[in-house]
């Protein structure tokens, strides 16, 4: 079960399991993000390369205007695959 919603401060809240069948929902939300944006992974249990690719696409688009995503509250498994992919070098992860 996956869910994505935006918090009162504009932060993007992910929860559940972000797999290849769910990426369009993420793309739909992130396409409207124009400024710096926090993506909160606190309730996200799992992500695969499909979800990581959507985040990368948004990061590349935002970087064109000097903006960026900030990814927070990853669990240790998700943090590890971001590291394996080298994504810890292209995202600010807290």
């Amino acid at each position, binding site marked *: 079960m996956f869910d994505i919603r935006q918090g009162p401060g504009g932060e993007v809240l992910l929860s559940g399991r972000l*797999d*290849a069948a769910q990426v369009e929902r993420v793309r739909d939300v992130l396409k409207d993000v124009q400024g710096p944006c926090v993506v909160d992974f606190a309730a996200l249990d799992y992500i*695969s*390369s*499909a979800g990581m690719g959507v985040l990368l696409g948004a990061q590349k688009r935002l970087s064109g205007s000097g903006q960026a995503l900030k990814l927070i509250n990853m669990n240790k498994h998700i943090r590890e695959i971001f590291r*394996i992919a*080298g994504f810890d070098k292209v995202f600010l992860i807290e």
Partner: protein
Amino acid sequence: MQRSFPKNLDSLEPLFTFVGDFAGRNRLEEGVVFAVNLAVEELFTNMVKYGGGADAVSVDLDVRGRELVVLLVHPGADEFDPTSAGEVDTDRSLDERVPGGIGLHLVRRVMDTVTYEHRDGAAQIRLTKHLGGS
């Protein structure tokens, strides 16, 4: 424990349930379950997107001694060896990166071995992961 899954993304949810049931029976630790889910999803979605072949993919999970063995079999698939893909340069800058291509890299890193063969007209991908408590 073996089961066939229709070759579409709607199968991901039942695939995760299948892995979760197996993990529960075998008391697999959380990190192993995460790795198996990731490896199976990446390889299964590749079979959905590419490779032609039958409309279903068989997934077999087994524990042999201290080793977890995963076998994905896709009858009639085109020959494509995912283990032959080049190494991904994970030091690339944001500008140099393109979405895609990272999935097989992750599979190779989270599992201990990944082997491919095309036998009896089927693509067969075998994954192993040591269950050493380490």
